[in-house]
């Protein structure tokens, strides 16, 4: 894959640029309006109205927020390690966007007689009609998410503030603890799919008219993976790295202006990635009734599923209180990890006998 770059037609490059733009804009817009949606949804859940002033029902709020952050004064603490302080938000943001390269967000569509698979890092072999993508897609996402933590850790360290340092330490400890269980939860999906290519995994869930989702075969794994993912992206109830009641704002205490905005965006972009990955692995990706007949319907299904999961995240945030630190570690190492291991064993045994 990707090796015969110069041997491909022009259309390939145009389609590629278009796909990158679409995915990028999708994430960017969703990030912007997820902040709005979060405030609105939590507001209504807590019987408040949320933002109402900017535009109709506060619809322009994200834009106003963005402008505000953009024009704020940039402060670099005098005791901070400048290099690391400046690079940390970038490190946090870039992997969050990079993960979207391997997530298939639709089937194969045909534009001007040229077939385009709706997944950024993929190409279609015209002769056989087969779609080739990164054959270690899931691992690629895990790799990217593990790189993202550097941004948080560095931010915490470079700020030279004890709240930030605490936040950074907590983030790294949390990530290491929960990445294990998340990885093991995915393993049980691999055992069913026997491939690591996300495109293949989605295709295998297309049975029963697009409803052969892995969540029905692996409910426990789906549950585990989603919990661990929420922990990995530091959202409530696992938002200890930025617990405002104890650590002011955790690792981003000392950040201001655009750099703060970048952390903010990274957090929401990570949330979208995680929801997209959960959709791909467990909710059948873009599969759904009639998605194979009308390729664009697949796109709609995909976005709908992702948005539902994002809503679910917000719902959790409005409902659950934050964990205490030792409870968090206890949950990760003594509850989720054993369960995911047992799940693998059970999957193995059942898989052996059923086959």
């Amino acid at each position, binding site marked *: 894959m990707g090796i015969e770059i110069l041997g491909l037609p022009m259309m390939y490059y145009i389609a590629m640029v278009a796909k990158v733009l679409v995915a990028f804009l999708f994430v960017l817009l969703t990030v912007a309006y997820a902040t709005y949606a979060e405030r609105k949804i939590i507001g209504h859940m807590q019987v408040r109205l949320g933002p109402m002033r900017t535009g109709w029902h506060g619809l322009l709020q994200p834009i106003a927020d963005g402008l505000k952050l953009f024009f704020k004064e940039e402060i670099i603490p005098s005791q901070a390690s400048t290099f690391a302080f400046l690079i940390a938000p970038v490190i946090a943001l870039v992997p969050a966007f990079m993960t979207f390269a391997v997530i298939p967000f639709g089937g194969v569509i045909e534009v001007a007689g040229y077939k385009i698979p709706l997944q950024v890092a993929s190409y279609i072999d015209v002769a056989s009609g087969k779609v080739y993508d990164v054959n*270690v897609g899931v691992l690629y996402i895990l790799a990217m998410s593990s790189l993202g933590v550097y941004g948080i850790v560095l931010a915490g*360290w470079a700020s030279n503030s004890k709240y930030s340092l605490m936040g950074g330490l907590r983030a790294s400890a949390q990530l*290491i603890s929960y990445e294990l269980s998340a990885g093991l939860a995915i393993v049980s999906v691999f055992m069913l799919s026997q491939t690591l290519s996300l495109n293949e995994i989605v295709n295998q869930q297309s049975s029963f008219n697009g409803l052969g989702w892995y969540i029905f075969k692996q409910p426990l794994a789906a549950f585990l993976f989603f919990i661990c993912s929420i922990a990995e992206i530091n959202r409530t109830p696992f938002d200890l790295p930025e617990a405002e009641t104890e650590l002011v704002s955790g690792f981003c205490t000392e950040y201001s202006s655009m750099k703060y905005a970048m952390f903010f965006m990274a957090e929401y972009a990570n949330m979208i990635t995680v929801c997209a990955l959960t959709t791909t692995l467990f909710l059948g990706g873009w599969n759904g009734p009639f998605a194979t007949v009308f390729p664009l319907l697949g796109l709609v299904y995909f976005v709908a599923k992702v948005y539902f999961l994002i809503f679910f995240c917000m719902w959790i945030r409005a409902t659950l209180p934050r964990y205490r630190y030792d409870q968090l570690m206890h949950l990760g190492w003594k509850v989720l990890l054993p369960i995911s291991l047992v799940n693998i064993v059970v999957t193995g045994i059942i898989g052996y006998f059923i086959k």
Partner: protein
Amino acid sequence: MEQIIFYILAAVAVIGTVLAISEKHPVHAILYLVTSLFAVAVVFYLLMAPLVAVFEVILYAGAIMVLFLFVIMMLDLGHPEKGFSPHWREWLPALLLSLVSIASLVMVIVSRHSQLAVPAAQSIPIREVSRRLFQGHGVAVELISLQLLFALVGALYLGKQQASSPGLPPSSAPERVSGSEEKSP
């Protein structure tokens, strides 16, 4: 095309490693090392070994280095004192070994590579990798797991605090320690 990318990445990896060694600040050094590891990972990808590439990032850049960073932050090693330069006799072993290493490297680079016996690169599916690993090198896999087990035993033994030992605080479960951390700031 791949050649250009390869050379860029190779340069990044080498420069990153050199900087990681020469940098006095441990956190910066780790950052350079991560950069270098990442570049190496992409080189692996170019060499048709996506699995190795991803594992390089997940394990080395993603897990081990984060742990290093974690430890350095915990121990607060971020403020390097002005390093005293060791006596030449203490340099001697390092010098000797680097000479051996550089000499062999130069030998390899200078020599003609007509007799390379490594099979030509082709992307190997994960199924094939695991089959080779667990069938061809089963004993090695088992050995590694045994080794990790006993490294764990050793680390636990050396790290375990003894209640009876003088001068040390009474042993406490790590959870409680991290729990009390919350209140300290």
